[in-house]
């Protein structure tokens, strides 16, 4: 067997090991109920802002603390604490992907993705509305 072949085999073994460890790092998309079952485990919670509940954010007091209630498509809701600045037009978001974990009944969110009418993508529907509403 050639050296090159041995090295290739070693590399492939390393690559496979790396990929298996990557698979172990993968997380899941969850609902409030399934996130509660995995208390303390890092998940992606898909929910939306419960607009009937107040959003607590007072940047004068603390720009790194906000608290709100998220509700998922099944109707379950959970309070969420997010230690960061409130994203712009948070109230207008249609959908939230909350990355974090459930701790004692509260979802501690580390990172948040907002599905607004996106900044980057064209929203054809929004444009169409512009066409009719003017």
């Amino acid at each position, binding site marked *: 067997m050639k050296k090159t072949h041995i*090295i290739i085999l070693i590399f492939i073994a390393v*690559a496979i090991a790396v990929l298996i460890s990557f698979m172990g790092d993968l997380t899941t998309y969850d609902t409030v109920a399934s996130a509660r079952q995995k208390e303390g485990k890092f998940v992606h919670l898909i929910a939306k802002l419960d607009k009937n509940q107040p959003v607590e954010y007072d940047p*004068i*007091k603390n*720009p790194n603390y906000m608290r709100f209630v998220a509700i998922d498509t099944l109707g379950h809701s959970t309070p969420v604490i997010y230690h960061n600045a409130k994203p712009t037009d948070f109230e*207008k978001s249609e959908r939230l992907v909350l990355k974090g974990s459930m701790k004692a009944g509260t979802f501690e969110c580390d990172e948040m993705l907002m599905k607004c009418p996106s900044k980057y993508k064209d*929203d054809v529907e929004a444009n169409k509305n512009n066409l009719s509403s*003017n």
Partner: protein
Amino acid sequence: MKYIGEHLLPGQLGHFFILLALVSSLVAMIAFFKATNAADPADERSWKKLGRISFGLNAISILTVFGLLVYILASHKFEYYYAWNHSSRDMNPEYLLAALWEGQEGSFLLWSFWYVVIGLYFIFKRTKWEAPVMTVLALAQICLATMVLGIYFGDTMIGSNPFLLVREKFADAPVFSRPDYLSLPQMQDGQGLNQLLQNYWMVIHPPVLFLGFAATLIPFAYAIAGLWKKDFAGWTRESLPYSLFSAGILGLGIMMGAAWAYESLTFGGYWAWDPVENASLVPWLILVAGLHTQVIFNATGHSLRATYLFYLLGFIMIVFSTFLTRSGVLGDSSVHSFTDLGMNTQLLLFLLIFTIPSLALFGLRFKSIPHIAKEEETSSREFWMFIGSLVLFLSAAVITWQNSFNPIYNKITGQNTAAPEDIEFSYNKIQIFVAIVIAILTSIAQYLKYKKTAGGWVKKIAIPTLIAALICVVYFLVSGLDYDKKGIGFQIALYLAFVASVYSLVANASFIWIGLNGKLKAAGGSITHVGFALSLVGILISASNRSVLSFNTTGINLKWDERSKEKPLENLTLIKGVPTDMGKYMATFVNADSTNKNGNISYYRIDMMRKDSLENFSLYPNLIRNTKGMEGFSNNPDSRHYWNRDIFSYITYAADMDNRDDTAQFKKYTVNVKDTVYYSNGFFTLNSVVPNPNNKKYQFLPTDTALMADITVFSKEGTRYTAQPVFYVKGNEARFMVDTVFAQNIAIAFSRVLENQKIELQVKESNRMVPFVALKVYEFPHINLLWLGIIIMTVGFGVSMVYRSKQGRLKAVNKI
């Protein structure tokens, strides 16, 4: 119905030329195909002639389509959906081209445009590889033309026509029941270019990137040609300059995107391992791997099979990335993929058309590709270069897997797997080792000789090794790499990568003199390596030692929740006019101003003053109100550049962002001295009324008529504040100055003087009163090394290209 005022001619012409582009590229492909397979030289000539004419027609068609689209955008023909959706009247003319390639259709045309340029170059070049290379290129042109075709077969739409009218796009909208719909206000202006994209980078980054995308087809086409004509080794010298060109331009295009991300998007950096970024990095890695095996083959005859594989996969990965970013399969996992135009099947076909036949041909001919049975010596240059290429290729394979596993796996199985907790780290922890290995290989391999190296090389490399070691020791004593959040193991890896990169930098720079006697023209490879190593050093330092300046150290009236302590408290609130402690600086939010003509960009002036010196500067991070019917703001950072670091800031929250009106009213109180008034968070007392005050705040003269109410505010938390509203007379008119206690959100006015020593105070409480911003400020040390490295790398590719094309010509002459 006959509509009034529509200009239908440009659209009809445009669509005609799209069809012509498709047909002519089809004819060109068939003709070049026939020319490649022709046995009789006369046959070949006539087929080639037909191919050239049809490709010329294709070139004219694409250029005309391009021109018509520019005309429609420039002359604001809003009856066309492309103009209506991507441009507006108030848009700066320099963003016309940005608007052109904002949409999928325009970017496909841009790609096609580069094939026109490359194809014409090949035709004029008269190489013997013209026919097979042009066959592949024409096939790509066919695929691209179908993307903008916009024709229905039954219910299936093939491509998306950029000349579609608004009334065709939204056929059911009620406004189109009127023949004069164009005179309606909503048709008088377009939706505008996405505000974030109104940036000069949007004008230059896509053309360069797409030129890189397009150019990867050249080595691919040569490889196909070699397999097809069974002239397996005949193309490797001629095509090397093109391979260098495509790697150089693609690398530059990718890093221009990184610079854009750093400068005006708020990823908080230049690279986020975003699926779209990865999708263009992967072909580059494979292309660079192929470049090295091609050089090995030209020098020694080894590694030809690997070269074929890498070049085939390089372009296949370009098409795969096109599929990923444009089909919408990435869904939520990427911030900047294109809008899904419902062309998934078509994009998949594009991918399969290039993947299956090329890999099948490779498999079929694999056995006949010449290779040397005898193995490379361990002391040879080619052995280690090959290992390096292999590492690059595996790195690309791992990135591809991580990048596309989730969307594709979820699509097929219906599962709900998501990205790892720390996406960037999941890439970093692997690629850091790739960087270490590659950097070490680039340092050493050049000092080895092809075939077999004698003992002397160790002496040659000794001096650069010592210099590199010295630099590292000095740097570690002076600064070091601070990033320890991922544990000691990763920090050690960072140190190793730093040592390896510095070593590569020094060894390659020295090699220009030690190995090449200072012949810069021949040193393209070394120069490129120097640039690459310098970029790595820049990345390692700026990412490891990035520091947050806006740590909320003192703040005003901050009440922390105890759990937040270990979280990254990176947002500092600045209240207008109040200097706030920000590490080495005192930061003051001075004002917010809108200077562009639409008034949709607000610039926040933040004055920064160094505590230890008199250095003063202002940052202008800004907020851009989104266009195109979208809510919200985009924040656009501002940086102060120094030679050795950047101060980088962006607004995370501003008081006036929510645009709610301040509905709070002033309430009147009649008070005597020593009286107390309550407000929601405490009370205040009028201590005294001072005539003609002369203090830090007010400078009245004894001849003025002015009264100041000296008030102490006591909050519930037990803090005290002073408020000093003033009542004065000027020009026979009574006026007053409000004093605001921002920390308590109250404003107090001294509005009237009443009888019996009483005065009237007016008090307003509002949570909207205080002008403030919350912002993040980072310091990126030595980020300029990254940009400088990229420039040097691109220059190196250019030098190599010139040198190799001369070498190729020389060899051709010698053969004759």
